[in-house]
Every structure is written in structure tokens, then in C-alpha cells.
């Protein structure tokens, strides 16, 4: 515990020295867990700080993640995120949140909003493609993957959706694949999500007031088994679908979002713990 606190302190100081405000974190300004389409404006920065966890029958996992995003042009952005794992548990391989994986990996994701159309005042239809590079961090996962020789991987995804003053709908799917390293390989993960958002009439306030909206987020993850020394280990993959409510509030250039998800479908390997609830809280600072 003392070691974890010391690492947290070092990480926080490093962030401060780099000139980052400490108010940050989150997976953009859309839903918490699911894929979404907005990108930063041209020249716009966003700093996100997320806390996420997975609670199971016997084990719990928790971590924090910082992400810095820059919009090169209005439809192209790059995000880089750094992990700090507090506790790790052998749950089913999962992406976690769309923009910030719930693992101890470093990640850089490019997002290209290849379609954007303002259909009317206050409504928009758009689609975004993601491509990212995943690099293993120094913190190791729990369970059978602990002693795995981990290699870099890539993440690719696409999302499309509709947004208005009252309703939001996004659907998306992603795929994570890791390279092999001396016969060891982490499992591929197919992830998908569907999000419905709603801003009730009393909350449709004019700028600059707090702007709140609610989401119902469904995410799914289907992972294969891990390989060690060229052998596939059964019972290390699985398929889960989670569902739950989340909320997002924005005030000027600050945002806070958070929520929980519960498994509604679970078919995971015998070597994995059963996940009961997944949660995440994010703070965002746009500048």
C-alpha cells in the first residue's frame, strides 16, 4: 500500500512538473464506457483523469488513468494515456472504457471523425474511426497473465451516432490484438457498445450553466484465451455484456462523468473471477 501511495505521489508530482492542471481526467465528453464520436476542436487540448474499477466475488481491481488529447484539426485528434494500477484481479479480459483501457498499458489513440453533418439546429450525425497503439507498462496484471511476456498491441474501432439537445444514440465496435512474444500472447478482445443518452427538458439550460445528461450504456467484450509458450490456455477468455446508468455534467471547460455497469450476460472461463460491478469516474479539463 505504501508503495502504491508513493507511486501515486511521484506520478502526481510528475504531472505537476509537466504543467498539467490537477483537475483533469475522463474519456472525452460523451459516455463513460461506450464508444462515441466527438473529437476536440482544432488546436484544442483536453486533460482527463479517470478512476475505474471492477469488483468481483473475492477480488477487486482499481486503477487511475491520465489522458492528454490534442485536436490537430476539428476532425482529427490524438490521445495519450498513462495508467496507474492500484489493485489487479483476474477478471475476464476487457477494454474497460472506450478511450481508456482498464489495464496497466500505455496507449496512444488517434481518432478521425470521417463523417460529420449538422442535420439541423442542435442535431448532428457523425462517425469516427479510432486506431491506437498499446505498449505494456511496468505494472503486471493478476492471475495467469501475470508472468506472461507481454508484447505491444493495437486497438481499432469505429463508432457512429446521432446527437441532439435531448437525445443521443451511439453504437460502435472495436478490436484489440496483441503481438506474440516468444510464444506468449495476450488474448484478442472484440468490444462493442450501444449508448442512449437523454437530457430532460429542465436540464436543457443555456450556456454557461451546468449541462447534465444521463446515459444508459451497454458494452460487450468477447475475448479469446491467452497463449503461453505457444500453448493456448483454456478458461482464460470469455464473453460478457454489461449494462448500466451513467451521467455527464459539463460546466464551461470542466466536465465530470461517472457511472456503473452490471453484467447482464456472462460466459467467462473457469480460471477467471466473476465480475459483479464495474464503475468509473472521470474528470475533464478542456483548454
Amino acid at each position: 500500500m505504501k508503495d502504491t501511495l508513493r507511486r501515486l505521489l511521484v506520478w502526481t508530482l510528475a504531472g505537476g512538473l509537466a504543467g498539467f492542471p490537477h483537475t483533469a481526467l475522463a474519456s472525452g465528453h460523451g459516455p463513460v464506457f461506450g464508444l462515441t464520436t466527438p473529437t476536440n476542436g482544432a488546436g484544442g487540448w483536453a486533460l482527463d483523469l479517470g478512476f475505474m474499477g471492477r469488483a468481483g466475488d473475492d477480488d477487486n481491481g482499481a486503477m487511475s488513468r491520465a489522458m492528454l488529447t490534442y485536436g490537430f484539426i476539428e476532425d482529427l485528434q490524438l490521445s495519450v494515456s498513462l495508467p496507474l494500477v492500484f489493485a489487479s484481479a483476474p477478471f475476464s479480459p476487457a477494454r474497460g472504457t472506450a478511450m481508456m483501457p482498464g489495464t496497466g498499458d500505455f496507449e496512444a489513440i488517434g481518432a478521425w471523425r470521417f463523417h460529420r453533418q449538422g442535420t439541423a439546429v442542435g442535431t448532428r450525425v457523425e462517425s469516427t474511426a479510432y486506431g491506437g497503439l498499446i505498449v505494456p507498462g511496468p505494472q503486471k496484471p493478476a492471475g495467469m497473465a501475470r508472468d506472461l511476456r507481454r508484447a505491444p498491441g493495437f486497438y481499432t474501432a469505429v463508432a457512429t451516432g446521432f446527437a441532439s439537445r435531448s437525445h443521443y444514440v451511439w453504437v460502435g465496435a472495436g478490436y484489440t490484438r496483441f503481438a506474440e512474444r516468444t510464444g506468449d500472447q495476450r488474448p484478442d478482445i472484440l468490444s462493442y457498445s450501444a449508448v442512449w443518452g437523454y437530457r430532460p427538458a429542465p436540464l436543457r439550460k443555456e450556456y454557461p450553466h451546468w449541462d447534465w445528461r444521463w446515459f444508459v450504456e451497454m458494452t460487450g467484450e468477447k475475448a479469446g484465451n491467452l497463449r503461453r509458450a505457444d500453448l493456448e490456455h483454456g478458461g482464460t477468455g470469455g464473453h460478457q455484456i454489461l449494462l448500466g446508468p451513467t451521467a455527464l455534467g459539463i460546466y464551461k471547460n470542466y466536465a465530470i462523468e461517472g457511472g456503473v455497469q452490471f453484467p447482464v450476460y456472462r460466459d467467462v472461463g473457469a480460471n477467471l473471477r466473476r465480475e459483479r460491478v464495474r464503475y468509473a469516474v472521470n474528470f475533464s479539463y478542456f483548454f
Partner: protein
Amino acid sequence: MNRFTTAVLVLVFVVSSALPALAQRAFGYELKVKGMMCAFCAYSLSKHLKAADGVTPESIEVDLAGGTVTLRSEKPLERARLSELVRAAGFQLEAVAQTVEDSSTPAARSGRRVLMSLTVDGRGLAEGEFDSVLQAVGVLASQRSAGLTVVGPADLEMRTLRPILMGRTPAMDAAFSESTRPDNTVLINVVAAPPQGVSRR
């Protein structure tokens, strides 16, 4: 006090009297923007518009429900520049209504809200074409119980605009003002409250 001192004092007085008027010079714009729906949209768009040279940051107001943004600038802003700023924020500029909120503008003096604004190339249209434009705008103005304010070169007003307005469309309430713009464009505003008859401001 000799003549030179008197002349200097008069000059200082004149200049100091003129300075506030110069400082108040501002151009107003109302932008119709597609795609905004949340506070972050408003923040992002405001941030990009603030970056434009001459824009008064505190003048920017975003109406999310109406999809409009109003702002003032000390310098005139071309539609292309405004469109570029809106696009950089990730949105689409649908329309721009411009009002010159200068002391030379009747709409600014009276504080009337501009319902529609039309900029016409003063050299590019023949009299007959001007007639058609003003007829169309005048019909709209009369239907909405509104008025016209016309800002343009003085010679154009006497030669073209005044005869059209006075001779052919007497129902149209119009006020003229001489343009201070370097080009020869004519700015026609349909304003909320009509002025009384045709007048020269």
C-alpha cells in the same frame, strides 16, 4: 493665452471628444450554426471565435436552443473567416447576419433588433436589380411590421436607393445612413421596430 495654445487646447478637446466614439466602433454579427447541442459545444465555439482579431470576448453569446451565436468585433469580419472559425470548432455555419453597431448606424442608435441583414455589392447591381432586391426585402419588412435601415455610399443613395424606395415602394419604412466601409457595399437591415417614414439619419 496665445493663439497657438488656444489652438492646441481646441485640438486636444476635439480629439478627446472623438476618442470615445472611435472606441465604441463595433460590428455586430449573428451566426446561425448547425450542430451545437451542449455546453462543451458552446465553450469550444466561443473559444475559437475569441481567437479572431478584433472580437470582443465578453460579447460572445451562445443560444443553444436557437442555434445562434452573437458577437461584436472592433473590425469587420468576412463570412469566410467566420465560417473557418466555426468549422475549426467542429460545426457548420449556416448563415450570418451582420449589423454595423457603429454610431453611424441607425439600428445601433435606436437599439432595434436586426431580423435580417443583406449585403449587396453597390457596384455590381444595376438599378433594376436593386429594385428587385429592395422590393423583396421590403415585402418581408412590411409583412413583419418591421423597418429597413440602409447603409451605403451617399451617391448610391441619392442616385438609386432613394428614388426606388420613395417612388415605388412607399409602404416601406426606411432609414438611410452613409457607409463608412471602404468598399461600396450596401447593407440592408430589416429591423424589429419600423422608423417613421423615409428619413435621412
